[in-house]
């Protein structure tokens, strides 16, 4: 009798095969769904071509320190001695100092490269995303400075407070695997 129980007949074989195939199929469907879900995860980002540098990003974020920061695309930057994103337009001398610098929080560092070129770097720990430098760079320079949501800080709220306060509709949902909307080299 015991031997009979272990005998695999055609019916059992078909039933077990069907179960196995069903489990594999379910696994595949679940895997595909998980993959698809991961691929279509959306996060907030600023379209730099729609941003009007209105300054709302600095204060409307739910975080005490906004998740929006200024970024610099070096391929577009002109490395100007008179950087309109760094200096006040009426700066009397091209030297660092609060009286000459545009950034209210001193978040941009100016480093000499070679005459007459300088490199400008954003210190994100000081940047509050007010976009004052963005406005100067866009109006007078190449627009290499612009705002982006930094995803090491952003909580990715379902209803982003800055997006609601954005007057130009520059806040967008983008795929999580392409989290930044950077200006291309052709922009300059």
């Amino acid at each position: 009798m015991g031997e009979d129980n272990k005998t695999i007949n055609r019916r059992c074989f078909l039933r077990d095969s069907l179960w196995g195939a069903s489990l594999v199929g379910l696994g595949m469907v679940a895997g595909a769904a998980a993959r698809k879900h991961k691929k279509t995860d959306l996060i907030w980002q600023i379209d730099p071509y729609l941003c009007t540098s209105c300054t709302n990003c600095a204060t409307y974020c739910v975080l005490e320190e906004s998740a929006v920061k200024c970024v610099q695309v070096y391929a577009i930057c002109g490395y100007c001695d008179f950087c309109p994103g760094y200096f006040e337009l009426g700066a009397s001398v091209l030297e660092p100092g609060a009286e000459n610098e545009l950034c209210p929080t001193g978040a941009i560092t100016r480093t000499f490269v070679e005459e007459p070129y300088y490199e400008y770097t954003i210190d994100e720990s000081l940047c509050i995303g007010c976009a004052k430098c963005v406005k100067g760079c866009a109006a007078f320079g190449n627009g290499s400075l612009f705002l982006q949501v930094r995803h090491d800080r952003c909580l990715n709220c379902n209803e982003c407070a800055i997006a609601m306060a954005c007057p130009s509709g520059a806040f967008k949902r983008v795929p999580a695997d392409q989290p930044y909307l950077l200006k291309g080299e052709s922009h300059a």
Partner: protein
Amino acid sequence: MDQITGKANTRLLVGILIGLAVMVAVMAVVRLDVIGRKGNGLGKGFKYDIEELTRVDPALIVYEESADAIETGLAATHGIAVDSKGFIYVAADRAVRIFSDRGVILGEIELAEPAGCLTVSTDGNLFVGFKDHVEIYDAQGQRQASWDSLGTNALLTSIAAQGDDVFVADAGNRVVIRYDVSGNVLGHIGKKDSFRNVPGFVIPSPYFDLVVSRDGLLRVVNPGRRRVEAYTFEGDIEFWWGVSSVDIEGFCGCCNPVNIAVLPDGGYVTCEKGLVRVKVYDSEGQFAGVVAGPSQLVREGECRVCDLPEECQAGGFDVAVDAAGRVFVLDTIRNNVRIFTKIEGR
């Protein structure tokens, strides 16, 4: 009886408290600003405010708009030229359109690719600068020649023809190329050379203009140094003029002026971006007056800088002058041509 009064008072108190709480909640909701209507609360120091700098003393304005603007009907205009007959040529993405000074379309030359700059020689040939090469068209719009490419880094932004010479400003390679009319390269001008005291061109953005002046020298804008430099055709630097300043006499920002034209009296008209100003300098480079300031050029009644990047990047207006000294300003945002004439007595 006292007990009943006490209960009644407690109920009244609770009712008042609930009422107050509801009122506070309603007020909080009403006052809540989730869409940025009330501003962001940042102080004055966070605002990019250059309104004061956009104001131009009316006494310095020596030109007035003398005709209706010519609507080109083109998209993405880049350059303007005026020939000896007073015809106006406007280069755009896929065409050069020719207008009379009254705005009547006289012809159009279709192009295979975007044109960045153009000039008309005294014999009526049209030289068109594309990204990396030059093409020549006759007065009927037939292509006569296409010169060799200057390579992938080239970005031609200005062209001038004088006699047998053609000068092309290449912003990508930061150099001026001297050609003969057949397209043979005769030399390069402006490469950094300490032995010849040539400082080199600093071109942070794609604006790099040149003209041949009435004194027989080439005037090349060195925008990153905010000045205009004079070169011989052989490439020797003679002198320069222009100061870096936000004041009306100077050129401000990272890179100005963006375009230049020669007046019949040997003076110059310059065009700046950022603070969009068209100004006049005499033949020695001394400031002589303003053709139009930001309030006249950017948006009527508004002294402001651009908002959107697209608008900012298209903000490098071009300028041309006819034989009568009228100044033609190509508004590359609205794609029209504004005509200014000198005010008599100024």
